[in-house]
């Protein structure tokens, strides 16, 4: 499979993380792996950026963080979406959809602009 590298627009990272966590609590590594799987490795994220993002969203109250233990009995920090986080996710999704549909309008337009 061709691996094309798409740089991630800032701010979209938050959206990706929130969406990923909407499936359930995960630690930071699991979030990354899920995104990797879902995008079939086509999205390149500088992995370190994940952690400031996660901590920032915890500070903002969108995520709750708890230390827990993985299946392999390793200690890891798990993140969970809060109710506020869910609301914010819904808002961001709506905004994203509006944004992309407006952009699509321009890109797929058939006529040239009137002079």
């Amino acid at each position, binding site marked *: 499979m061709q691996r094309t590298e798409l740089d991630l627009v800032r701010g979209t990272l938050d959206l990706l993380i929130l969406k990923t966590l909407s499936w359930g609590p995960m630690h930071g590594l699991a979030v990354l792996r899920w995104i990797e799987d879902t995008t079939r490795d086509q999205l390149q994220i*500088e992995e370190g950026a994940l952690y*400031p993002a996660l*901590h920032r969203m915890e500070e903002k109250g969108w995520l709750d963080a708890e230390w*827990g233990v993985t299946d392999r009995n390793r200690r890891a920090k798990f993140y969970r979406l809060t109710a506020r986080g869910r609301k914010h996710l819904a808002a961001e999704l709506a905004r994203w959809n509006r944004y992309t549909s407006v952009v699509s309008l321009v890109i797929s337009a058939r006529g040239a602009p009137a002079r």
Partner: protein
Amino acid sequence: MKRVFRLPNSSARIGADLDEELSFHLEGRVDDIMAREGLSREDAEREARRRFGNYESYRREAHDIDEMILERRRKMELLDAIRRESRSALRSLRRAPTFSLIAILTLALGLGATTTIFTLLDRVVLRPLPYPNAGRLVNLATAWPKLKAGTEFGISRGQYFYFKQHSTTLADIAFYDGGMMIINGDGVHAPERATQVFASASTFSILGITPALGRLFTTADERWTPGSRLPALISYDYWQSRYGGDPSVLGRAIDTDDDPIEIIGVLPKGASLPDVTPDVWVPNRLVPSDPPQNNHTHTGIGVLKPGFTVEAAQADIKRLQEELREAYPNVYAKAFYDRTGFSMSVRSLAEHVVGTTITRTLWLAFAAVAFVLLIAVGNVANLFLVRIDAQRREVALRRALGAEAGHLAIHYLAESLILALAAGLLAIAFGDALLRAVLAIAPQSLPRLAEVGFDWRSGLFCFGVALAFGVAFGLLPLTSGATDAGVLRDGSRGITPSRASEVVRRGLVIMQVTLAVVLLAGAGLMAKSFAQLKDVKPGFDPRGVHTMSVILPYNGDTTARTGAFWHELARRVEATPGVVRAGATSDLPLSNHDGCSGLIADVVNSAGESGNCMPMRIVTPGYFEAMGYTARGAFPSWQQVESGVGPLVVTRGFANRFWESADALGHGVKPYNPQAPSFPIVAVTGDVREMNLQTPASQVAYFPIVAPPSKMPWRIGGGLVFVVRAPSVSTPAMVERVRSILAEIEPKALVADVAPMETVVAKSMAQTSFMMLMLLIAAAIALLLSAVGIYGVISYLVGQRRGEIGVRMALGAQKSQVVGLVVRRSIALTAAGVVVGVAVALMTTRMLRSLLFEVRPTDPLVLLGTAVMLLVVAALAAMGPARRAARIDPVEAMRAST
């Protein structure tokens, strides 16, 4: 996922946790990469790090966020704890409403009064004057101790110029004279009086005054000639009240009773001189080439150069005065120096404006309310102790069930802090109201009155003191071992006598009684002074006498014409019903006018003097009779005065000073200089207190309004104080009559400063009566609070000694004997406080000395009275507990104590 570990709560743990999280991530990625891409561990690690990005930078970013989270959490926990404790404390306080209410009210009473006096003290005495250079401003004055000790006079123009030019310590000098002017009616406004000041141009820069509109004076303005139009500045308030704040007021002319003036500027709100707030400012006439004269009536304020002290300025000015003296020996002759003891005095302006008397009065008042506060605090402490005792079992139970001692201590602290804060709030409201009341009765001579008001400093003081006591009360439980669980082992009903507790209570009451004694002694001394002052016979009879200033516009009248006016006014007023006599004087008695003029008698007395600077008055016929003076000889009649004979009246003090044992009648006095005409003495009054009630045997000469025509030594301008004896007429009615008569004979005249003579007399006692009132109120409150305190302790002691009392009754003691026992205990306890109190009073009442009138600070009668009063109060306060003690059932009491 299992929840296992708690969130980090320290800065160190944050770093450790973050490292663990990030290394977990990296290790997992290494495994992924190794599995997926088959790299070696080393290569995988490198690849993982590469894909991670700048490790340090991301770690730092996350770490900063974590620290923010931690700090926020800490704050929330603290707030939660405070909220929790407050609610719990409020709940337990609400369960004891009597205790809480009494504690708050008592504390608020003491705190409010103290804050009020603190506000006065702070604004008047402690705070610097409201000028930018306040710390460097000094007052230049002259002292004439041989003439009038203890008073300072002003400086002369010659001194102003010389000092200004040659001083090494003063950067500049302000020079001004205050006075009154009449603004004539202009069709729109009625004629009115305005306060006026003649000020040098330097005044404004020295006091930091800049104009709100227009410009200030220049030195050129100072060189005006009489009759020319003077530039004038008006005050902000005057601008608002007379011109409605109209900005086109610049350039407008004002018609006055003297030279016309033209408005060149408006001063900003609040601009004023230290001792007067003028409506109109005009330039003082300062021409450097004018020769110096011996006229030291002007106010001089200097500003020190940076780095120089007041003492340095004093030495400097003294030196310069010596130079001036040598340069002008005719102005500053040796004879003049010998006669008056003339010298220069330089003091800080603040000290001059406020004065030592006011400073001392306010500090004394502060001490008095501080005493009251301490007594109140004693009562509140007692209340706390009672409550602690009552809660002993409950507390012990809590401790046994696992409550930490620290937590209980915090609980008590929270309770007392809440009470203290509530008391503080109430105190501010109470103190503000009290301040208004105090200002209403305060002597008008209180300086810087306009600056006094409640502000953040008062609030800070009030809450600061409240919190301090709140903390002290909160720590009380620790002193009495209230958290000691040993109480549970005791089978008693829960009130365990604690040695320390009893000593503390006794100590508190003794402290309260001591303070109450000192306050009562002070109040008693002041009351005695006041009573004696009131009894003083001033040499005239103020009852039924109305006074008012009648001010004439100056239009170059001769004294004969002015005399005719006053004669006509008096004649018409005397023709109205109820009027016994009417007359006028230049200054009322007891208005503390300090000036003097050079008067020369026709003899040389045994001290070698034939004249001196003596107080003088100008009076019209009818004045002495209206005021009720008595005299040897006959008071001058209008006929005598208008004939130009110049009949003079002197006081007995004046006569005794110059003519000693000889009869002064028939002798003469010349005003100002030997070339003046001689005024023959036609009457000698009795012993008169013309200046103030405290100073006997004033030496005053009363000159007639019309002088012998050969030379007119004075100009009657401005007006006189009109005096009417009419006991059956009210003062407002009298004023109306005078106004309507004036409308007929002299419409341009003004009536102002209306007051019954009795009010004038009362005002002269204002300082004494103010202090007395303050101390009486403080003493009354102190007495009341002490009575409550004594009652509290005696009740407590009766409660403790139930067993003992029961035994006595069982052994045959009568009810009356029990009552007697309790009352005697109360008196004994109070007596200890009285002894200490009297000792302290003996040491401290001497501070009242300057305020007392013919009373010794150690007056034994007052001290005895104080002691007796407190012992009586002790007996009365013990009645309640004593009767309760008498009702004790001996059997039950004995059973309970075993």
